[in-house]
């Protein structure tokens, strides 16, 4: 390596290591939208930041995309589903000045919106319905956490509460109120959903590893920092020391996450009701049980007396003690009343509780729990990551999670709002202002528009962490509405489109591809919520002889299909699904042959193509071509044309071009020997396999 390069590399490293100057740990700056020379393009503040950035590079924004394209983009983005042909037609004809805003509101109000955005967060929360790792047992109540997410996004739960509930929901006053307890406890499933080595013979290691997993997902999700790096040594690049690690790990070590660590270990579940309600329920069951026992005993005595009377040939009426009879009747009434007063059990949810005895952890050499421990480190947080935001104190006897939730949602926290706002931007545009949404450290990406990120973060906090408002700001911006066509001049200057001179086209995620196929074919079942997992709680979902209890045949939205670690639904695995064992901030988008094979040969796609073809035949019957009927010159003579048009409207929300029409007709004619149904099914399948169907452009 030449000396000059070595010097340059060292300089880069020094700059990187300069923790004091690293942008993400400094307070969020109060920025204002810049003045731009020509402000006619801007629709809101976001656009002024974007326009200024474009001007710096000498670029112009792209024109607005077509109505059809915009509605498709909005619909995929906000609901994960394509718009129906009718929705596209209505929007194209809506001439009201606020037609676009109305479309946005309609989509935000759809139950599908929460389903779409819950799935985004599930990537971060490494959601799964099974443990994975060594012993793949079912989390049969995990879906309650997923359904809570759907409700939270559909109900526009303020994001500070969203965060607090997931870190410390069981400790909030809400956990003690009948109407809010269930959600409050359910949200803490976030901390429990991780994969654990359930057959780990070294129980101490089992617990240390699960605490480590919690530190990892927690710090990535909310702080975009990999604190768990510091389990074994001070963080190589960011100011997180090993002592910092054990300080934060102590908080989770002081939290109970497991019901049992004996092989095969089980995660903790709690009844989704306030503690005193649970106690009342237990007492009601005890009362009913003892009343039933009292009645049974009395009845047994009475019938025993009857039996004796029969045995000795005396009259039963004489033999039976009338007092005993009356007594038994009274006890029966009591038992019935107590039975009726049984309080039904609330569902159980994956949840945590503060440990009976909180502990401060000792620093272990190289993170190895068997190595001689050093002095205990008081529980706390890495101070360098949140300059000027105090943590604690931790109340006596508490784990520190509540203090952690307070610290995270302090309006002055430099990271939390920035991180969340950036994730939302990432999910809208396919890429964040910071390209590594879970890594804001010195090795992560830099914001493309730092002032915009800070402006959004401050505005978000000031609005009361109002996510709906943030969605509206982003999707109604001119930046968001740009066309996707590549322009040669811009491609030369900014091929990666970091400055946002156009909409970056991208492929749909695995779930949206499947949902779109089902929506177009007409098979999609829009039922909201519930579980499709048939496995008993903590039973094995997969085993060593490759049995797999998970079923994926239901035509429900992909969100509701079981997420089985170690054996992901093959369709999902093929299309770059998340790795549900770890917190994932951005999914890759690969193009590989197995995806093509799936579209060509899987029974799923073939069946849906058939179903769609049958539906099209019903909707647009082709009149048998009468040989003597006059053919109008302006009309296509092809009897298939109308049905092809209908197919295009349903799949793409548009009419086919003449060339597309011709290609479709030619294909159908060439396959006529298969018979109408098979030829149309093959044609429908080709349309389902097109790039256009699965591209948000």
């Amino acid at each position, binding site marked *: 390596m030449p000396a000059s390069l070595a010097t340059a590399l060292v300089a880069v490293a020094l700059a990187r290591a300069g923790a004091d100057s690293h942008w993400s740990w400094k307070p969020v700056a109060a920025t204002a939208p810049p003045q731009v020379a020509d402000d006619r393009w801007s629709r809101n503040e976001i656009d002024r930041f974007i326009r200024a950035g474009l001007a710096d590079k000498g670029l112009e924004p792209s024109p607005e995309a077509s109505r059809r394209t915009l509605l498709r983009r909005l619909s995929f983005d906000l609901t994960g589903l394509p718009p129906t042909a009718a929705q596209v037609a209505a929007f194209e004809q809506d001439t009201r000045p606020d037609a676009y805003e109305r479309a946005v509101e309609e989509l935000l109000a759809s139950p599908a919106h929460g389903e779409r955005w819950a799935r985004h967060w599930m990537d971060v929360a490494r959601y799964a319905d099974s443990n994975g790792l060594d012993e793949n047992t079912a989390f049969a109540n995990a879906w309650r956490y997923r359904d809570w997410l759907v409700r939270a996004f559909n109900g526009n739960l303020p994001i500070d509460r969203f965060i607090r509930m997931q870190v410390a929901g069981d400790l909030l006053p809400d956990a003690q109120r009948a109407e809010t307890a269930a959600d409050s406890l359910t949200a803490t499933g976030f901390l429990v959903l991780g994969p654990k080595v359930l057959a780990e013979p070294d129980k101490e290691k089992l617990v240390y590893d699960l605490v480590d997993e919690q530190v990892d997902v927690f710090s990535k999700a909310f702080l975009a920092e990999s604190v768990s790096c510091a389990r074994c040594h001070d963080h190589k690049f960011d100011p997180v020391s090993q002592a910092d690690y054990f300080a934060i790990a102590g908080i989770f070590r002081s939290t109970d996450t497991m019901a049992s660590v004996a092989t095969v270990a089980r995660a903790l579940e709690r009844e989704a009701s306030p503690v005193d309600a649970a106690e009342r329920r237990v007492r009601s069951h005890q009362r009913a049980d003892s009343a039933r026992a009292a009645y049974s005993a009395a009845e047994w005595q009475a019938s025993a007396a009857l039996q004796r009377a029969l045995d000795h040939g005396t009259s039963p009426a004489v033999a039976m003690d009338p007092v005993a009879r009356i007594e038994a009747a009274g006890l029966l009434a009591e038992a019935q009343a107590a039975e009726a007063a049984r309080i039904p059990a609330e569902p159980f949810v994956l949840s945590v509780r503060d440990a009976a005895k909180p502990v401060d952890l000792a620093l272990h050499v190289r993170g190895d729990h068997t190595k001689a421990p050093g002095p205990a480190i008081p529980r706390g947080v890495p101070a360098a990551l949140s300059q000027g935001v105090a943590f604690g104190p931790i109340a006596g006897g508490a784990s520190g999670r509540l203090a952690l939730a307070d610290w995270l949602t302090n309006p002055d926290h430099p990271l939390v709002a920035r991180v969340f706002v950036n994730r939302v931007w990432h999910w809208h545009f396919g890429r964040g202002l910071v390209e590594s949404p879970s890594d804001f*450290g010195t090795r992560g990406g830099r914001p493309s528009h730092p002032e915009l990120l800070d402006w959004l973060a401050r505005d978000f906090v000031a609005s009361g962490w109002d996510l709906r408002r943030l969605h509206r700001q982003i999707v109604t911006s001119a930046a968001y509405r740009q066309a996707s066509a590549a322009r040669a001049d811009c491609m030369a200057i900014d091929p990666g489109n970091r400055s946002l001179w156009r909409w970056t086209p991208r492929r749909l995620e695995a779930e949206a591809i499947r949902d779109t196929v089902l929506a177009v074919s007409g098979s999609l079942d829009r039922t909201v919520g519930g579980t499709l997992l048939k496995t008993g709680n903590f039973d094995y979902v997969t085993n060593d002889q490759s049995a*797999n209890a998970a079923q994926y045949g239901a035509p429900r939205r992909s969100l509701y299909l079981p997420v089985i670690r170690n054996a992901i639904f093959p369709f999902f695995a093929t299309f*770059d699904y998340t790795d549900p064992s*770890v917190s994932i901030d951005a999914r890759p988008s690969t193009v590989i042959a197995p995806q093509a094979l799936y579209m060509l040969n899987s029974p799923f796609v073939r069946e849906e193509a058939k179903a769609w073809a049958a539906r099209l035949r019903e909707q647009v019957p082709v009149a048998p071509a009468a040989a003597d009927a006059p053919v109008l010159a302006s009309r296509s003579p092809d009897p298939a044309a109308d049905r092809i048009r209908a197919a295009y409207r349903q799949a793409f929300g548009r009419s086919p071009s003449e060339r597309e029409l011709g290609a479709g007709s030619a*294909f159908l004619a*060439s396959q006529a020997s298969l018979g109408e149904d098979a030829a149309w099914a093959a044609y429908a399948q080709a349309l389902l396999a097109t790039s256009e169907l699965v591209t948000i452009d």
Partner: protein
Amino acid sequence: MTDPREQHRMCTNREPVGTRRDMLRACCAGFGQTAFLALLAQELLARPARADSRTEVAGGAGSGPLAPRIPHFAPRAKRVIFLFMHGGPSQVDTFDYKPLLQRDHGKPFPGSKPRVQFAETGNLLGSPWKFAQHGQSGAWVSELFPHVAQVVDDLCFVKSLHGSNPAHGAALLKIHTGSENFVRPSMGSWITYGLGSENQDLPGFVTISPTLGHGGVNNYSSAFLPAAYHGTPFGVTGQPASKAEFAHMTAGMPQGTQRAQLDLLRELNREHMARIGGDASLEGRIEAFELAFRMQSEAPWVTDLKAESPRTLEMYGIDGGPTEDFGRQCLLARRFSEAGVRFVQCTHSYKWDQHGDLRKGHTQNAREVDKPIAALVRDLKQRGMLEDTLVVWGGEFGRTPASQGGEDGRDHNPHGFTWFLAGGGVKPGFSFGATDDYGWYAAEEKVHVHDMHATILALMGIDHERLTYWSAGREHRLTDVHGKVVRQIMA
């Protein structure tokens, strides 16, 4: 692309870079300097690739994720066949002969047992099988493996292997991915990522009859590596190998119709791409459909055993008897290797876990695999393929020399066990390392699972410290921060 877990576990022996002083110290530390600068260089190289790595594009030979790539140094092997014995075969009943264990049968183990055991164990249990020396090399083999005994002069035994965890799931993940508590790319994924494959019309990493238990798919997953390096299953454990196939490789319509469908699709996709303007992933998508079509014609030819002579089928034991299933797996492995697949794994399903019924269980298991394994080694040799094909045999751990549950069972033992390798640049007729006198702990020339990984990569021409992938904050490798190449077993 970001991943996963960038836990810097025991990351490195480099100085931490925190302050200017740390920095200077790191730079003055000799080895530290080289490694540190290499790290920075990697980082700079890795960074621009990051945005691109979101979109991996399949293509013909010369481009695309499976295009053959030049190794770091001259490889000794071009391909790997891993014969995985799920459950943990006992070293002291197969290849690791221990006279003292026979002598002291029934006595307490004189050493100390591991701090953490999977289950309670009793006194020493001598092997119920007789051992004898075989071949020119005089390798000890028990009567469980009469066929393998005939090819010992082609084998290289490593008798001092050791791992980290005594539970199946964690141990499987460890030997396949190098990590037991994080989801990491499998060895086969790393190798195809590093070298690509020699056949662009087949997957580069094929796993025959893999298990869904004990880590399941994560044992052959590409984790944060691009999906092209994911192991492609051919059948699954529990299903006879004669029924195994690749998923979605059979067209449900006449070939002419599918061709016409693909032609139509290409036209529609090209038109769509033209509207948006050049886009690598849309172009890649068009090519992926063509590749899929080619795969459909290539795969059936490779996996059809009808082309094999009756003599070959007999040699592998494909005769409806106990050797039928693993025989098929081994013959398929040879055919995939011949066709240019980079990494093939065969899994002898979860049968070797004899906590009890050791005599019956190990006898049955050995009978199922012994003849096919010997046939594979011979077959590769007679075709001139053994010299550049690395065959690896082994389980996720061995078993304890002490008994469990009476006198006919052994517990899991990750502390000392035996694997053997053949071909691909290893010393033939060689034995390396040793366990203690009773076969419990690796004692001489210890080889950790990480060292085995480093060695397999080295035989493929890959420096395990340089085959890295950037994911969420750091470079990752198969051996994490461990691994020492065992040069002594290289020919």
